[in-house]
């Protein structure tokens, strides 16, 4: 059964609502950001909902005060506002004290394509993974969002959950949890090249995969559900079956998913060619929507296909070189 007609934020908040009915110490704070599921929460559990004002710095430290009093707190807003806007609060109060507060951001990458760079989240992976004590989850469909939500109350911790704004096609079936334990899932097995991606871009890479199949290139696809920490041993064992690794993200390359992967591969002494694909260092002030923006920064499906083909060809060249 398809579950892709539910917005990620509603999947998430619905789960939190169900838990909040049972756990009176669960508090949900919003900096004036909503969701259909949150309307129900606010209506049914007003005692456990706190409108923090459009005051993200305030929201973070209030949540810290609640957490220090034994509460399980969630702070909720669009990604740029719940991360960059109050970054130092998140660092000082949540990271250094390692409090069980879940930072829930909506609008990964160009989700808010019609809104412009104030609303884009093209640096959140980099900035949030720089923090100590943090776990970062990047669910790319309904089932993984559902499991991410469950994790926040079954294993409370300082976490950042990055959600997409839009409906997402299913990656996993209902009840499936193979991505959960290690945070890494090889969702498509392939040969020669494996693509590591996360969130919204999983579907784009899979579309590229279909196109490439017709041209005789069978790529593997890894969904990185957990961006931090990355399970290096498992990642190594998966990618070692391939001849090259490509990372694809809707993020600036500095410090993003690709950076994280290359760090892990270096530490694990995996000597494979790696190509990072992401957004060039530029803020687009252009109309036209997400697909159009992807074309501009060359992370649309066709560009991904081209980049994989180039990478594939370069690997063939490498092989000739190394066989001499």
């Amino acid at each position, binding site marked *: 059964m398809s579950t892709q007609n539910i917005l990620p934020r509603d999947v998430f908040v619905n789960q939190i609502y169900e838990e909040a009915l049972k756990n009176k110490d669960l508090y949900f704070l919003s900096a004036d950001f909503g969701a259909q599921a949150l309307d129900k929460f606010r209506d049914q559990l007003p005692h456990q909902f706190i409108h923090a004002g459009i005051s993200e710095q305030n929201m973070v430290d209030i949540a810290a*005060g609640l957490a220090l009093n034994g509460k399980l707190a969630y702070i909720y807003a669009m990604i740029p506002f719940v991360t960059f806007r109050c970054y130092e609060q998140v660092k*000082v*109060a949540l990271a250094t004290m390692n409090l069980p507060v879940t930072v829930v951001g909506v609008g990964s990458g160009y989700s808010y394509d019609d809104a412009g760079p104030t609303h884009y989240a093209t640096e959140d992976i980099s900035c949030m993974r720089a923090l100590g004590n943090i776990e970062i989850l990047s669910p790319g469909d309904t089932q993984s969002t559902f499991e991410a939500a469950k994790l926040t109350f079954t294993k409370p911790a300082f976490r950042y959950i990055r959600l997409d704004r839009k409906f997402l096609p299913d990656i996993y079936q209902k009840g499936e949890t193979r991505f959960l334990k290690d945070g890494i899932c090889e969702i498509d097995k392939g040969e020669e090249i494996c693509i590591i991606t996360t969130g919204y871009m999983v579907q784009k890479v899979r579309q590229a995969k279909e196109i490439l199949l017709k041209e005789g290139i069978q790529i593997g696809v890894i969904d990185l559900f957990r961006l931090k920490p990355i399970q290096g041993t498992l990642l190594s064992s998966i990618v070692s079956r391939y001849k090259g690794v490509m990372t694809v993200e809707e993020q600036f390359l500095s410090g993003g998913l690709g950076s994280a992967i290359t760090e892990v591969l270096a530490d694990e002494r995996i000597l494979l060619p790696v190509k990072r694909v992401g957004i060039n260092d530029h803020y687009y002030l252009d109309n036209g929507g997400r697909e159009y923006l992807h074309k501009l920064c060359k992370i649309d499906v066709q560009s991904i296909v081209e980049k994989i083909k180039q990478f594939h060809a370069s690997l063939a060249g490498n092989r000739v070189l190394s066989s001499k």
Partner: protein
Amino acid sequence: MRDIHPFLSKSQWLRKEIFDMVIRTQKGHIPSCYSCSEIVLALCYGGMIRFDAKNPRSKNRDSLIVSKGHAAMVLYPILADLGFYPKEELLKFTNPNGILRMYADHTIPGIEAICGSLGHGFTIAAGYALAAKRDGRDSKSYVIVSDGECYEGSVWETAMFASHYELDNLITVVDRNGLCILSETEKCVKLNPLEDKWKAFGWNVINVNGHSYTDIFRGFDDLVKNKNKKPTVIISKSVKGKGISFMENKVEWHNKMPNAEQVGKARENLEKNCIIN
């Protein structure tokens, strides 16, 4: 009428303890501690704060957060004296085998939250007050902020928030010593009319002379009388460096260390009671 004589000797004791710790280690902010010494002593020994030194996080305690984290030391001798940790810890201040450091954090018994970056402790204290309200506990949340800290925008986000949520259990002391690091606050970016700002945000304002126990306890009496559901700010007019004549009201002493001659002079000063009532 409360007998203030025991408090006068506490003032002298606290200043000497802090001075010794700083001179021994060459670390700390003497003047920022001295400007809020009396109000902190009055809170801790004047029956305002319920605490359990053996169980520092007991549910029904009142909390005290020194949000002006550079003055964390003002609490260290007090917490030792009240039994939160052994007095020997004061001698191990900043040592690798000690638990006390220049800026305090939640790992130290009696310290509620990490402070050092201005503006955090105040909002966290509001979170404490909110938690108590929602739990139906009568715990009070006390927090000391510096006047310079009021430059932080987040302070005013929380001022608005605390008023909206009727956090009348949040008692904020603004240590109005009038100085930040570079100059007088009114010459840097003026904070006045500070009282009007808090009132406009929906707070009760009580003004006290921060170096008069008589006035501080009068302020506490006023505080108890407030039944209007508003949070309260006590603006404590104080002197940065109070008690060491050459440090008083001098910006350059924010974190400067006195030389040997100045140490001698300071110790002479500290032998005298600098508080009049």
